[in-house]
């Protein structure tokens, strides 16, 4: 697979106004993100997840090492606008990302800044609102949208810039269950149509949709692999302060109590099947 983002020996520390340089937020990060990949990034608070996200589109520049996005080095100031067009970001709080007074204006904001001709702008607005399922709401005020709709609007604004990669930084954590589902569907749709999706999340259920999961702790990559592999190692999962899916937690608890339940179960259906067999055999 072709790489879209490459990080080589990346370290980052914040400059504090009074106390000078902080401790390393990230150190020694080596990572290749492939074109079209769906990658989930997990880790406890303060592990460096959001710092990583901001490094990927040049909002932060590495203190050491380098990041190359589709052939462009983020340390090169001249290429930064191009890097930011390639890597779009969707943040946590929907209300902080809305600038327009109508849905249409809000989507247009990024394109206006990039000097895209009006005719093309109108086409792209129609196209991206269609993709996130907000067509028909062009003239609505963003403040009257639900949380899930606001996040989809933020996604539409990012998509209008035709990015290669979209980074979701805990983009579902402030939404109700219905809103979360809407955003996850939009994410899935992006992945299906070939956009690279990087999803930073605390939710194991959400990370399960990804192809690869990466765990950060103390500014370092501690583990990477498929979601299924991850939940076979439940001890580490607890150490990294991740939440395991209910089925996995229940399986571990039943095993500890001496019930003959297989170690490699990760899904609800498998577990239901096993428990049913166990309880009806008696």
């Amino acid at each position, binding site marked *: 697979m072709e790489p879209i983002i490459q990080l080589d020996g990346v370290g980052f520390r914040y400059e504090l106004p009074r106390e000078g340089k902080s401790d390393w937020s990230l150190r020694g990060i080596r990572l290749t993100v492939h074109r079209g990949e769906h990658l989930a990034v997990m880790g406890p608070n303060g592990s460096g997840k959001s710092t990583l996200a901001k490094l990927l589109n040049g909002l932060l520049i590495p203190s050491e090492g380098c990041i190359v996005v589709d052939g462009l080095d983020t340390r090169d100031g001249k290429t930064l606008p191009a890097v930011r067009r390639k890597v779009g970001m969707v943040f*946590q709080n929907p209300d902080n990302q809305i600038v327009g007074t109508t849905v249409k204006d809000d989507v247009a904001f990024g394109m206006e800044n990039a000097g895209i001709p009006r005719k093309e702008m109108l086409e792209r607005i129609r196209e991206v609102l269609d993709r996130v399922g907000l067509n028909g709401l062009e003239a609505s005020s963003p403040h009257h949208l639900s949380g*899930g709709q606001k996040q989809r609007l933020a996604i539409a604004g990012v998509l209008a810039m035709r990015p290669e990669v979209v980074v979701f930084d805990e983009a579902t954590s402030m939404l109700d*269950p219905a809103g979360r589902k809407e955003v996850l569907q939009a994410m899935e749709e992006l992945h299906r149509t070939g956009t690279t999706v990087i999803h930073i999340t605390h939710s194991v259920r959400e990370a399960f949709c990804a192809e690869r999961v990466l765990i950060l702790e103390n500014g370092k990559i501690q583990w990477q692999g498929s979601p299924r592999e991850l939940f076979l190692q439940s001890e580490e999962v607890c150490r990294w302060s991740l939440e395991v899916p209910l089925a996995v937690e*229940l399986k571990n608890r039943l095993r500890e109590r001496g019930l003959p339940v297989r170690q490699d179960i990760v899904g609800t259906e498998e577990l239901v099947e096993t428990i*049913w067999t166990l309880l009806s*055999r*008696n």
Partner: protein
Amino acid sequence: MDIVIQKLTHVYMEGTPFEQRALTGVDLRIPSGSFAAIIGATGSGKSTLIQHIAGLLKPSRGWLRIGNIEIGPDTRDSSRLRGKVGVVFQYPEHQLFEETVAKDIAFGPLNLGLSALEANRRVERAMEWVGLPRELASRSPFHLSGGQMRRAAVAGVLAMEPDILVLDEPTAGLDPVGRRQLLDRIAWLRRKRAMTVILVSHSMEEAARYADRLYILHRGRKVMEGLPADLFTMGDRLAKWGLEEPEAVRLVRCLNERLNPPLPESLLTVEDLEEAIVARWEEGKSP
């Protein structure tokens, strides 16, 4: 201190073209000492409701009574509620502002007119309640970790020693361990201080684990109130209100489609499930 709400209606910017009705005819009662969870989709009126309980909004129609304080459309001064009801707003760490953690937590108590000595005592106690190590007292709140900042902000509200603690999405953005620690502390403190806790949350798991009473709002109306075990097992109706079942309830339902006799439906947490399954297993082993 019971909370009684009668026919509460709230209309924002009434009589203007921007008029928006947020609550319609809400009746509810939260008994003193409850751990109440208010759940509902975005826009269901949760925030408007808790702002009434905090005395920050006045009803357009109807009234509410908290202890012996009654607030209606014509009430002039609702500030009497302020020392009694403490509110932890969403992302409370955005409201940290002082130079040190101790000064930040002392801000509320000093505003209530307490002496510096008493305020200091309360700072120490509140830090202990939320599990913040003493040595952090002299640190800048801005150099704490995300979880510590959240706890410092909660300590600032607890230091006013409210009878009623309202928490609006207190765990959003925290990792699972941080979430569990914070709510465990709150649950412990509620028993210790006989405090009423009102939790607003999008997490059905949290509501199922901690609350003893559940209130469901939908489009500005209270549509249901009762025990978590009753409300969380209503299946499709929850989805209609934009909510979902806790994971444990879903798993029990899947099991019960095949299991005869079925497991009780009232299993809401992984611990409940574990006990019920182990009990059934042991039962089968010894005839």
